[in-house]
């Protein structure tokens, strides 16, 4: 398939892997965090870690948008969904995320009208087709998906649609990275920077990471060769004693981002003073809400929201996993009490969460898997 296969070529991968291995200082342990869940997905889907030398460890970061939604927000959304005349809509990934009392799938089984959509515009379409109902879009995601939510609100406003609102859970990537950088037990050498988020925000917002914290960051695409190339670029920076922001994904990411998308976010949304992240706790200015000018599209203004806070289970060590302090298997409940069927913590929720990915794909030692496939 054009535009896909050329980024998955095994010969090129082998050549890159050889350069990566050559650049590794013997005996040094490198830990790089891929911030975005999409990268985690690519790494596991293609078995990319087979190409990395044992010195390099990839740590799966907080960039999985469904994983970071706190349980209280899921409960709030389910509360809205149970109100009479409400159709709740959200992306497919959201359906299985557990709140304090079950997930969207469970709420649906109990009678709530919850529908999976592929875009907020689909939710708006449902609103137009059901004028007697209140259609709520459970908006999730980083700056990647926030513009489409904002554009949908603008479209609803322009078309005078009054039975559509947004339950806004958009989060922003920079404060999350900063929270990780500021944690005292940080053990990361560099970042594989998110690709899709950067198509919107560009590369400049990361400059403080390289400048103030001395950590290289390479904005990276989502094909496996992109990620290998990014690892190489990071190792080159480390070998040369540099820490800079580089753009490996320049075929898609402009250095200054997408001004139109940013303007749409600015027009419709405003920063919340603080927002809770599953596993990471409250982070200041890390999330967006629908701004006052568009309050009539804000589900939090239209519906009474319980706003209850459900503490992360104490046995769960997702925070440490997200910060790269613990590996998934080092968590007390990993694989026994906490599994993909019965997730306790954020990292086990979606297939790209660090723990779910490790559980699904990493349960057997790479040596054993390699041995099994060699014969």
């Amino acid at each position, binding site marked *: 398939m054009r535009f896909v296969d050329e980024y998955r070529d095994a010969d090129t991968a082998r050549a890159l892997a050889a350069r990566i291995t050559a650049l590794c200082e013997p005996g040094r342990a490198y830990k790089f965090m891929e911030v975005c869940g999409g990268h985690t997905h690519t790494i596991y889907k293609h078995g990319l870690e*087979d190409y990395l030398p044992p010195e390099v460890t990839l740590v799966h970061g907080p960039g999985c948008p469904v994983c970071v939604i706190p349980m209280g927000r899921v409960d709030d959304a389910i509360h809205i969904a149970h109100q009479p005349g409400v159709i709740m809509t959200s992306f497919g*990934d959201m359906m299985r995320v557990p709140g304090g009392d079950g997930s969207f799938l469970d709420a*649906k089984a109990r009678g709530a009208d919850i529908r999976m959509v592929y875009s907020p515009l689909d939710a708006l379409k449902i609103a137009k087709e059901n004028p007697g109902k209140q259609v709520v879009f459970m908006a999730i995601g980083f700056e990647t998906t926030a513009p489409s939510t904002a554009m949908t609100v603008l479209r609803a406003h322009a078309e005078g649609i009054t039975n559509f609102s947004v339950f806004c859970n958009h989060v922003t990537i920079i404060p999350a990275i900063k929270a990780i950088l500021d944690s005292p037990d940080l053990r990361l050498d560099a970042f594989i920077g998110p690709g899709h988020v950067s198509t919107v925000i560009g590369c400049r917002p990361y400059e403080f990471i390289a400048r103030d914290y001395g950590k290289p960051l390479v904005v990276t695409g989502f094909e496996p060769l992109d990620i290998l190339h990014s690892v190489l670029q990071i190792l080159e920076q480390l070998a040369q004693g540099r820490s800079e922001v580089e753009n490996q994904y320049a075929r898609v990411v402009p250095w200054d981002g997408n001004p139109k998308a940013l303007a749409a976010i600015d027009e419709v949304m405003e920063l919340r003073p603080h927002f809770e992240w599953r596993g990471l706790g409250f982070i200041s200015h890390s999330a967006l809400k629908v701004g006052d000018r568009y309050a009539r599209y804000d589900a939090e203004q239209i519906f009474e929201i319980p706003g209850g806070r459900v503490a992360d289970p104490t046995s769960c060590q997702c925070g440490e996993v997200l910060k790269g302090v613990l*590996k998934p298997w080092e968590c007390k409940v990993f694989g026994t009490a906490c599994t993909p069927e019965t997730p306790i913590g954020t990292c086990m929720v979606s297939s790209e969460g660090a723990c779910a990915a490790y559980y699904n794909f990493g349960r057997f030692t790479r040596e054993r898997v390699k041995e*099994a496939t060699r014969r």
Partner: protein
Amino acid sequence: MTEPTRTSLEEQVLLRIERTRRSRPRVRDEHITLAHGAGGKATHSLIDAVFLDAFRNPLLEPLGDGAHIGETAFTTDSFVVTPLFFPGGDIGDLAVNGTVNDLAMCGARPRHLSAAFILEEGFPVAHLRRITASMAAAAQAAGVQIVTGDTKVVERGKADGCYIITSGVGTLDRPARLSAAAARPGDAVIVSGPIGEHGITIMLARGELDIEADLTSDTAPLADLAAGLLDACDDGQVRCLRDATRGGVATVLNEIAEASKVAIIVNEDIIPVRPDVRGACELLGIDPLYVACEGRMVAVVARECAETALAALHEHPLGRDAAIVGQVNDDPPGLVLLKTTFGGTRIVDLLVGDPLPRIC
């Protein structure tokens, strides 16, 4: 300091996890959710913890595509699909082919079917005629007769147009019994044709995705194809046949690996997938290995007859694109591993529920 690749502590944790995974599944949910119908882990635990628990008997316990009762194979299947009519078929074709295929996967020659209809008040009779015409044509093509049936009508809103339940009996003419537990290290794994066409066709036919592709469902009767394969090999050389319906090829391979306590290693670049299906899967973030087929099967055959089996499949129009996609190993038992086109390896696990599109 170099990080040790795996510590013995990690090995212990992994062993503990494997024990937990193999413990008897429990159904913790208070309500049935859609995940229970998706064919993955949730379905398996429901079957094991509710149905098998209530009905347990030696004929049911193998949990095959059908039961072997003496020289007879017996199976049943229910059909719910939206939309009822889609490119390449309709719920009528599915209802006949699905049950015919379950019998064929037992190694049986399908003979007689029953058909029960649950119809929603207000359902157009013209649609019903169209569905029954497809069923008649599919039955004729598969060489089976529909010999008994039932009709129920429920109030408007209590069903989605038309549901069909078919049961079938077939005759087991060959001495060897096929079983998901019969795969042995060294065996070859064959897929009979391009995968995922039915599932993607249905997703696109729902019209929610605004993706257009020239795809049709692969719904087809597999009895002839399966008989041709069985005839070409000696008795016992064909270990297992499974049609890759709900949950796709990945789910079937997992079931075989688990039942036979073997590892199955497959090669991503040999598994036949049409470019349109691959493209749609790429866009949606879905793995074609988990997408349903309605006219494709997975065969596990002894290594010495793998080429013969493949040649027999190639002779049949439904098996033209059949390929040997992998092999059975002894370790790690119960696991399906994929050698990726990119040159890596990964575990192909059962999904919990339906494959859900990813947002980013």
